[in-house]
């Protein structure tokens, strides 16, 4: 029985939260990797673009709530996401036309594009803060828990409860659907294949009659969808605050590079690698060992490898190690 308790403990505090957090990171990482692979620059405005999309989702959610539309047990935000995406894609296409296009046509070095993306970052941040303000916002409604800890205890008679939030389940399901559609699109459809060809070898792709304008546009559209959904899911699970979104850019970058930048599948797995290592390394295992070990060997300390303050530092250290030993990432992305 103790052993089952220990498993449930790990499931509750490590596995489920890490899976949800990893899915959110994975969506962001695919966004970064797509921009990097096809438009060829590191987008430092990632976090702020995600907050921009989320902002519209929130505004529509508030609007729906005010007119009384709801989605039953599911959060209203899910209904608002498509509208958020429309605004987000529009914004991205405008930004591309006004800003990035010029440098792409002039074939500027990637560094210059990265610098430009910092300008976009500042502007987006200002727009988000001016429209919705810098404060914390919660926009979750509907049923909060799928399984409550107390109910689970009653049901199974165990000491440890397993609580699963509905947002966690929604996050994981939506991510799986979205990512599998994306991979289907990239691998099976003609447009997807031409996108991959363009990413692989631009000149060859142009020679074979692929229209670069169309590729770039579709990339921004997909990026907009990913950024909005990723941001909205993160906001539903935790809360929306522009500053947090800006900070999330860092683990997202780490996930994209760990997975091999330019490689969407790598980015997808990279998100989970980062999330799991962050949570595994900063979890206090005391209770777990109390269940597993005989009473005489019970530990005194918290058995925590790193204090939770270093959560971010963990992912960055992993990134540094990967950069040192396998600069192309775990799943072979573009060689540096």
């Amino acid at each position, binding site marked *: 029985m103790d052993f089952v308790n220990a498993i449930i403990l790990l499931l509750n505090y490590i596995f489920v939260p890490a899976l949800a957090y990893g899915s959110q990171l994975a969506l962001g990482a695919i966004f970064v990797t797509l921009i990097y692979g096809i438009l060829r620059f590191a987008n430092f405005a990632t976090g702020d673009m995600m907050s921009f999309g989320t902002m519209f989702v929130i505004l529509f959610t508030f609007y729906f709530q005010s007119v009384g539309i709801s989605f039953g047990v599911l959060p209203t935000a899910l209904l608002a996401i498509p509208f958020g995406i429309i605004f987000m894609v529009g914004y991205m296409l405008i930004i591309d036309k006004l800003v990035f296009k010029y440098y792409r046509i002039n074939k500027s070095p990637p560094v210059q594009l990265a610098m430009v993306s910092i300008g976009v970052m500042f*502007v987006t*941040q200002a727009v988000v803060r001016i429209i919705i303000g810098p404060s914390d916002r919660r926009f979750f409604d509907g049923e909060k828990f799928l399984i409550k800890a107390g109910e689970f205890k009653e049901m199974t008679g165990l000491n440890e409860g397993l609580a699963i939030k509905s947002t966690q389940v929604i996050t994981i399901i939506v991510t799986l659907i979205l990512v599998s559609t994306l991979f289907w699109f990239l691998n099976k459809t003609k447009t997807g294949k031409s996108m991959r060809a363009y990413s692989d070898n631009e000149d060859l792709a142009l020679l074979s009659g692929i229209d670069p304008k169309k590729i770039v546009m579709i990339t921004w559209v997909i990026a907009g969808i990913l950024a909005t959904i990723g941001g909205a899911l993160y906001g539903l699970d935790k809360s929306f605050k522009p500053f947090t979104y800006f900070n999330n850019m860092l683990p997202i970058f780490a996930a994209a590079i760990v997975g091999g930048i330019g490689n969407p599948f790598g980015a997808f797995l990279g998100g989970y690698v980062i999330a799991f290592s962050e949570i595994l390394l900063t979890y206090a295992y005391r209770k777990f060992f109390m269940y597993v070990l005989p009473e005489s060997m019970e530990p005194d300390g918290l058995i925590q490898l790193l204090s939770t303050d270093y959560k971010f530092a963990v992912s960055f250290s992993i990134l540094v190690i990967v950069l040192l030993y396998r600069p192309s990432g775990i799943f072979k992305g573009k060689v540096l």
Partner: protein
Amino acid sequence: MRKNLNVIAAYGIMMGLIILVGIFQSWNIALSIFNLCLISAVMTMGANIQWGYAGLINFGIMGFTALGGLAAVLISVDPVQEAWSAGGFNILFSLFLIIAMVLTVRYILKNYKKSKNRTYIVAAIIILGIVIIRFISEPGIEAIEGVNPAKTGFLGGLGLPIIFSWVVGAFFAGGLAFVIGKVALGLRADYLAIATLLISEIVIAIIKHEDWLTRGVKNVIGLKRPAPYEVNLQQTDWFISLVEKFNLSKLNLITDLTERQATLNQLVIEGSSVFVKLCYSGLFLVVVIILLILTQKALYSPWGRMMRAIRDNEEAANAMGKNVVKQHLLIFVLGSAIVGIAGAMLVTQDGLFTPGSYRPLRYTFLIWVMVIIGGSGNNFGAILGGFVVWFLWIEAAPIGLYLVNLTTAGLDDTHFLKVHLIESVPYFRFLMMGVGLLVIMRYRPKGILPEKIEIK
């Protein structure tokens, strides 16, 4: 003279703007803007020799700034004797172990051929070392943090004058840059940017959470000053007579003696804070001028030529027998050291060390905006960038407020749009920076004062 006309004009306009602030707002604000402009100028010089001279992207400026600030704390704060006796031994022993561990790993890496076994042994040594160090340092850290946590709870510093920390800060930042450079300089430009950005976040995380060293988010306040204190100045005779002399015409208008005394007191209080700020300005100006002379000399030296050659064509420079890796490392260390000086200056001026205030937007990206807008590769441009951008950063709110009032003049004062816009005035600075950066990058990619290399 004619060639430098644009430089002189640009600086003249900038000074004029600051003087206008002094006349219309107050001299206190003008001087605090000027001081921070000078500090920003030091930072931009550091970033400029990395980016402008050598083409290295360093997005870790925040980390080096924070290390400079840490140096200011460790140099100037008086040592906490109790804490040292409580846990000093454990900390020193852990430090010794860390050094021993690094040396062993180095020895193994140097003397044994690359093999799987070697990797495993190195990994084992590092993991074992970390575990042992944690076991030894933990009680020490707890003891230190337990010593009067409301006031100290850390080891304190050396109790030396804070000016020394400017040099030490440079060494701290340079040391970190050496380690980062060894690790990350082989990466391609945008990866280097991401790697340094993330490493600087790690540095901040450590400074924030290692309370025994830095007091963490509890902040260190009341650092020593290189300048006199306002309270002391207000009671010094020569200062009061100086203020009196300056404002004689104003004071003579007042006939009532008690009123005259009250006005004088008011003026002395204002004057004292201006005087203190002027002292800082003087100190900072000395640093800026020394650095400017050194960097200008370096730019026109054979070494500067070599750096530009490496920047413009790495392969060709390599083929000419220049050691690209070594030079990159050197310039990375030098630039970061300058940023470290700026970090120490910043903490000196504020008189307090707040690890929570180090955020990448303010300390990394804003500095980059300064370098790009001012003109990378040109020291005068970089300094000008520091001045212009900092000035706008501070004055953006008043300008934004003015614009909002102008555009919404037709609306009622309680109209929700107007209220909302006035509330969000502080964020206009982000908008201004972003648009400024984008416009400069598009229409004047070399900055306000572009790089000009004359062959002498």
